[in-house]
């Protein structure tokens, strides 16, 4: 379903050319399968299947993004193991990584899309603006929304890397001046996988891609289309500080005794309870640490609308959240105001800023350029 043709080099041959042995590849697939909680036999099967197959064609489109997702993927800690994915796939277009530019790059893209029509994997990062006819994000004279629609037609599957393409992310945040939307709002008729996170953990990106190209099937997804194998538990479910939460031992400020003893960061705004991601188990930088282990509460960056869920430093309130992802801005402001009244100076400041921003957007109207007064 997904395989393109590139001088008929199989994945195995490509790897050998880059000095990556069959055994290294088996190790990589075994580790990836383990990280995805797949049985070891699947890892072995993936390695065998991929080795014999022609390299799948991948087109990577970047829209309103900060490039953090691509950086996460390419600056991984153990470069060879993670970046093996670049030897497995044939990355036919990526405007950040490719050597070509301008017309040459664009024709490489259109050729790859033609040659592999119906079979290439389309990766998208960044949200897609629709304001001003899509003029807020253009490349090669074409708007992001047009480029996406065209690329989606020949894609076998679409993988949205990062919260911006999955849920709109930061451009989508109130007041959304460019009319940004996630990919799912623009494309309706293709299998879409959302690998959310700001950025996502590199192993989550490569694991999802590997599973997709090796099996040709979309993995089990949750209601936000995120692979359940990585997004099936909340941070809170797997947090090593859970014993402190259960005992009611909370840090009250970032430099107090509780913080220094590694107590729960719930009162300092941790969004762990409503955030689904693999940070507490896979961690970051090759398993080095994750925000809570480094003393900072979870921002909830893999959830829809996380930029608009009130202060990162105000404690969550059950009244405001209900189901994760279904919060009205009005409720958030009320909760934030209450939290501010209860004490933290930080809370008060952010509540004030939120209220000011809301007032301004009501004045100026959503969709008009903000002129940098935020």
């Amino acid at each position, binding site marked *: 379903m997904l395989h393109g043709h590139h001088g008929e080099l199989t994945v*195995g041959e490509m790897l050998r050319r880059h000095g*990556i*042995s*069959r*055994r*290294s590849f*088996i*190790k*990589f697939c*075994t*580790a990836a*399968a*383990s990280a995805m*909680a797949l*049985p*070891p*036999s699947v890892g*072995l099967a993936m390695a065998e299947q991929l080795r014999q197959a022609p390299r799948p064609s991948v087109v990577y489109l970047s829209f309103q993004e900060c490039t953090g997702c691509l950086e996460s993927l390419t600056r991984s*800690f*153990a470069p*060879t*193991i993670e970046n093996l994915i670049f030897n497995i796939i044939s990355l036919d277009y990526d405007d950040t990584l490719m050597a070509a530019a301008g017309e040459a790059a664009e024709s490489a893209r259109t050729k790859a899309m033609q040659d592999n029509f119906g079979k290439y994997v389309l990766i998208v990062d960044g949200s897609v603006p629709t304001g001003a006819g899509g003029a807020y994000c253009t490349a090669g004279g074409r708007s992001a929304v047009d480029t996406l629609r065209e690329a989606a037609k020949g894609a076998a599957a679409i993988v949205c890397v990062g919260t911006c393409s999955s849920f709109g992310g930061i451009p989508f945040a109130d007041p959304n001046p460019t009319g940004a939307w996630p990919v799912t709002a623009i494309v309706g008729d293709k299998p879409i996988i959302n690998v959310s996170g700001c950025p996502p953990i590199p192993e989550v990106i490569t694991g999802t891609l590997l599973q997709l190209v090796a099996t040709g099937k979309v993995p089990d997804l949750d209601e936000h289309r995120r692979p359940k194998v990585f997004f099936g538990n909340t941070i809170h479910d797997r947090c*090593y500080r859970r*014993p402190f939460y259960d005992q009611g031992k909370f840090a009250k400020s970032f430099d107090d005794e509780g913080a*220094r*003893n*590694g107590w729960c960061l719930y009162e300092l705004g941790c969004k762990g309870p409503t955030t689904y991601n693999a940070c507490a188990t896979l961690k970051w930088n*090759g*398993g080095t640490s994750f925000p809570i*282990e480094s*003393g900072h509460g979870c921002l909830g960056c893999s959830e829809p609308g996380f930029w608009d869920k009130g202060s990162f430093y105000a404690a969550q309130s059950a009244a405001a959240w209900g189901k994760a992802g279904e919060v009205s801005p009005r409720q958030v402001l009320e909760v934030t105001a209450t939290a501010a009244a209860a004490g933290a100076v930080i809370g008060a400041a952010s509540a004030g800023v939120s209220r000011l921003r809301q007032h301004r957007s009501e004045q100026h109207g959503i969709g008009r350029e903000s002129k940098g007064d935020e």
Partner: protein
Amino acid sequence: MIRLADIPVRIEPTPLVGGLGGGVPAILSELASLLERLAKAEEPAAIDLRSLPMSAQDRVELRRALGEGEVQATLTAEGISNIRETRVPGVWWVEHHDRNGELIAELIEVTRMPLILMSATDEIASGASALREQLAAAAAARAP
């Protein structure tokens, strides 16, 4: 800065039952079944140790229960891998590390020989032709 190891969360040792810790009899029982299947039907299998909720104590007990066999293999491929047969024939303990020495996978394989150790058929053929070429080149170099 406080490290994870400094946080005073004590691991309560699981009560020993017949000399083995909590989760270990279950794993050994599964291994016995897999070995029986291997003996009867030549079907290999593997258990991913990272998928099991094992305590540090359990891991020590498991290693002790399985023991060390006669074979220790070191694989150097994008980092070191240690592949050891345990005292139980057909049960291999496999640890994969990346170039930075980080453990990236740990499994117990029930097999005659872990597949990763065996040489691949396609590579053998290309290795043979490479060797022939090498011989031919050496002969040509020696020719007067």
